[in-house]
């Protein structure tokens, strides 16, 4: 079930990023999609039942710890991606501000200097 939610979220975001005409909405869609993937990582790393955080308690047998702890690797990926996401937000926001300064609008339908 959580996987289906992630799939729906990611597809809506890809759709919005491609077909919305507002640049800011496009940007939000891309970052929501990154969040959907973060969620996917967390779900994959999580264990249902009596899961413990990935910090080994004193005196516990490592193999027993490995069988009940949640996966720290997924957390590592998500933290890295969140930090990278910050750089993306900064880049795109700066560009959107410049677009607004030049064109007075952030609707892609009204920005027609170039023809791809």
């Amino acid at each position, binding site marked *: 079930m959580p996987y289906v939610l992630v799939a729906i979220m*990611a597809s809506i975001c*890809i759709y919005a*990023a*491609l077909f919305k005409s507002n*640049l800011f909405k*496009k*940007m939000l869609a*891309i970052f929501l*999609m*990154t969040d*959907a*993937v973060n969620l*996917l*990582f967390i779900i*994959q790393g999580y264990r249902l039942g009596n899961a413990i955080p990935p910090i080994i308690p004193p005196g516990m047998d490592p193999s027993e710890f490995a069988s009940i702890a949640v996966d720290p*690797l*997924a957390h590592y*990926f998500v933290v*890295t*991606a969140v930090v*990278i996401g910050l*750089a*993306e937000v900064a*880049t*795109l926001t*700066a*560009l*959107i501000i*410049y*677009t607004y300064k*030049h*064109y007075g609008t952030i609707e892609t339908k009204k*920005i027609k*200097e*170039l023809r*791809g």
Partner: protein
Amino acid sequence: MNPLLFQAPILAMLLCLLGSFLCVLLGMIMGRRAVELLSGAMTATTVLLSSLALINVYLLEGPYVYYMGGWPPPVGIPYVIDRFSVPLSLVVSVIFFATMVYSVRYLEKDRDVKWYYSLRFLMQAGMYGLLFTGDMFHIFVMLELMGLSAILLVPFRKEVKAAVEAGIKYGIYDILAISIYYLSTAMIFGMFGSMTIAEISAKLGGYVSPFSGGMFADPSALPVIVALVVWSFAIGAAIVPQHFWLPDAHSMAPSSISAILSGLLVQVNIAVLARILYDGFAAGSHPGGAVGLQLLVILGVASSLVGASFMLVQSDIKRLIAYSTITNLGFIAIGLGVGTSLGVSAAYLHIVNHAFVKASLFMIAGVFIHATGSREIGALRGISKALPGTSLLYTIGTLAAIGFPPLSMFWSKLLLLLSVLSAGGAYQYLVLPMVVSIVFESIAQIRLLAVIYSGEKREVNCHPSLPVILSIGIMISIIVVTGLMPGLLLEFGHLAADDLVNVSGYVDLVLKSFNYPAP
């Protein structure tokens, strides 16, 4: 092993990261001359380090794996220094050095050049990382490093309206592409439980890892992941139908950046895709990975045809060269997708040759635009009488681009056609669309040459300075010299294709620290 030779490729990358920091610092304290000197010296050192790495891999030690931070894979990030990645890293260094020499005079009138040099260094570091890495998640990080600096460099002249528009267009699509790649890494993590490229292909062959065990899920869903990866890299490498950002971004960027974008960035993207498909998803043997190759062939044919036909109707010199990039990327995709050893080595040579040719064409187009003050092809009438030397260099570059016999791209195009013909089956009919697009491309390029050599002598705003001519001369002489030594070129391509296509060799190399194959 000599520690300097062993660490040379990683030192080159670390030097770029350091240079990016120092450029901004020096620019704030000492001004632009210091920044230019520093980045010139550092780029020259990266050329030296990459050459050392090439000598080491080809003549002394052979391919090896560098463990980042001393952690062997699959725990840490492996940097695979083999005969596929090292020559490409030398190409990256040389083109960055040539454009460095070029930009000193080219950007004379621009302000805030410290950011320009700083971002260039970040992009170079990202390219080294992408070429060497053996880890799927590290590819994501390095794509961001390379992509974000490229996105910010396209609208470097931020007072130009169209440059900002090209930048935001490129920004949105490139970041979307990277996000789609991030989605596919999550799915790979769910299916294989590992991000090391070598472990993925080993697990497809039934390997049980001492850390993450065997496969987590049935590999029947692999084509979905492969399609997502191909999609994301097709946006990055501007393969039709995801090409629409490329002509805008490449034509609106400063010419020194266009040279890097068109000569390196798209090529690095497709080289990484080849690495993932062949060594990660075992495209040569596993049916799931082979889907990626078929996709590449289909998209490549579309790409070469669309790019070549759009070249015929362009009136802007930089857009014409940008569409030529799309055409040639289509050829590279076809060569990689055919999947034979000959096809891969032809595609590899085409990557290298096209990088030099396209970078030099964009650099000369920058000189023409400065001289005439216009990007229109019509404005170039009579330029050959005013700037005879530059026009001669441009002619050599164009002849190389259309595959005129003794020049470098002739050999790779010939090999591509031969590989398609020898692949047999339905693939041999691909020779028809390829020949059609080569003919279209030649018509468009020769029409441009005819404009340059027609008309009366005209006035020009400025003549190119010596460093600019020198940097273009380096590139053109590389094109001529490599074209005159096809034997050496073929040898390089053959060895690179060997290292790429031979999956078991790659897996042995990367995983040998854990006694692969495990009992």
